[in-house]
């Protein structure tokens, strides 16, 4: 095997473009749903009592502890049990990714809120600031600043996890590359191209997160 033929990659760009659209769909929808789930679980854990706290902690523990592949297959097969209808592979992947991202984000949000020193809220309250403003203008802005690197990390992880949706047959980037490579046996070229493509999305993200982390570290000193 001496010829590397990247023209195959160029020829299959339309198919890869379809795959990319599905990848983006998976990432954005699961991030949006995951944010809602994450916020609810995080609030339940911080503000709830007794049973609710344990349920929310259990949610995080379960969905962080089950591999994404297993979760996707499980939801794919358990559709008839849960809603009466078999979900399409896209819906199953979206649900599984939302649940997973929600579990990750709930931990990120919780960590951010707990990282704000208690004295901040106490100071605001002792100055007579209403409870609403204690949260919206004292706690949450500071929490958000601490959380940004971890948030970027979760987004990057979501992009990586979206590739797993190909195992249940969602026609996203990895799936398309597999199909095309299966026909022409240009695995090396296609997966190099797809890998580089993911790298081009993920590398800037990790660089931004790293530089931001460094900035935070110097500010705290």
């Amino acid at each position, binding site marked *: *095997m001496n010829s590397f033929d990247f023209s195959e990659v160029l020829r299959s760009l339309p198919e890869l473009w379809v795959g990319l659209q599905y990848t983006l769909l998976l990432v954005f929808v699961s991030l949006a749903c995951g944010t809602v789930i994450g916020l609810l679980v995080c609030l*339940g854990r*911080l*503000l*709830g*009592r*007794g*049973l*609710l706290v344990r*349920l929310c902690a259990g949610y995080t*523990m*379960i969905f*962080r*502890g*089950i*591999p*994404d*592949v*297993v979760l996707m*297959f*499980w939801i794919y*097969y*358990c559709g*008839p*049990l*849960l*809603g*009466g209808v078999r979900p399409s592979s896209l819906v199953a992947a979206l649900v599984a990714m939302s649940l997973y991202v929600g579990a990750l984000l709930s931990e990120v949000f919780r960590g951010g809120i707990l990282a704000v020193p*208690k004295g901040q*809220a*106490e100071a605001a*309250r*002792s100055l007579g600031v209403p*409870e609403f403003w*204690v*949260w919206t203008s004292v*706690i949450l802005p500071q929490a958000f600043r601490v959380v940004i690197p971890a948030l970027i990390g979760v987004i990057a992880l979501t*992009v*990586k*996890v*979206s*590739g*797993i949706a*190909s*195992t249940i047959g969602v026609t996203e980037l*990895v799936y398309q*590359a*597999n199909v095309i490579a299966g026909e022409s046996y240009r*695995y*090396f070229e296609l*997966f*190099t191209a*797809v*890998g580089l493509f*993911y*790298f081009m999305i*993920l*590398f800037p*993200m*990790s660089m931004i997160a790293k530089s931001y982390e460094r900035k935070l570290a110097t500010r705290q000193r």
Partner: protein
Amino acid sequence: METSSAFPRGEASVAEIAPRQETSVLQRLKQSLDIGSVLLIVAVAVGIYNFIDWSQVGSLDFGIVVKFWRPLAIAAGMTIAITATAFMLGLLLGVCLAVLLELPIGPLRYLINAYIELWRNTPLIVQLFWVHFGLPVLTGISTTALQSGLIALTLQSSAYLADIARAGIQAVPKGQWDAVKALSLPARTKWLEVILPQALKIMIPPLGNLAVSFLNGSALLGVLSVGELMTVAAKISDYTSKPVEIMTVVALLYLAINLITTHLTGRLERFSGSRP
């Protein structure tokens, strides 16, 4: 708050006020949310109860899992073995890379950084396919599914662990480096007996999270049918056409392995003194 306004707040010293402010924002909101949370739990439970198709749940047959317990147990062992092997090899490789990063050789540093970023910023599933189908084309050596799965997992873990090891090495107090220099210890002693033992201790907390994520990653090897838990689960569910039961049990197995791993790393942290 008419009654409390009689209390001269502005003139009281901090020491007088501080002990009274024991209820934090969180605790106060917790008290007000008590009834709400109970109602919420009931509502969610009723919703889930109506959502589930109970006639189908009744027809589930978990006896199938008992029948196939032996292959499942072997596969679970295989999953643990693969993850542990990849983790250990990755740790070795990662620490070596992190040490090489400390050497003042410019091009080498660029190369290692590129390696780390490349493996950290691509999905594992792409790496798997790349190693399994791509490398044979490139090198002419074809690997079995197990070998390529192990290679991909090891290389990825080495990149993540190199990053952690670098942070660990840089976190070793400066006095230690100065002492090594002042005593003019040889490089071997410097790394193996002074710097690395301390760096490893600093590295332990993030290792727990990473071990769990590698275990979850190893489930992906099922794509190449390596013979670990996910592969066997897919085979049994194809054979018996009872995927729900098998997948449920497999998910619980993974969860159990992950929880045990988390617990063990927690104990390791306490044992090594990196957490009180």
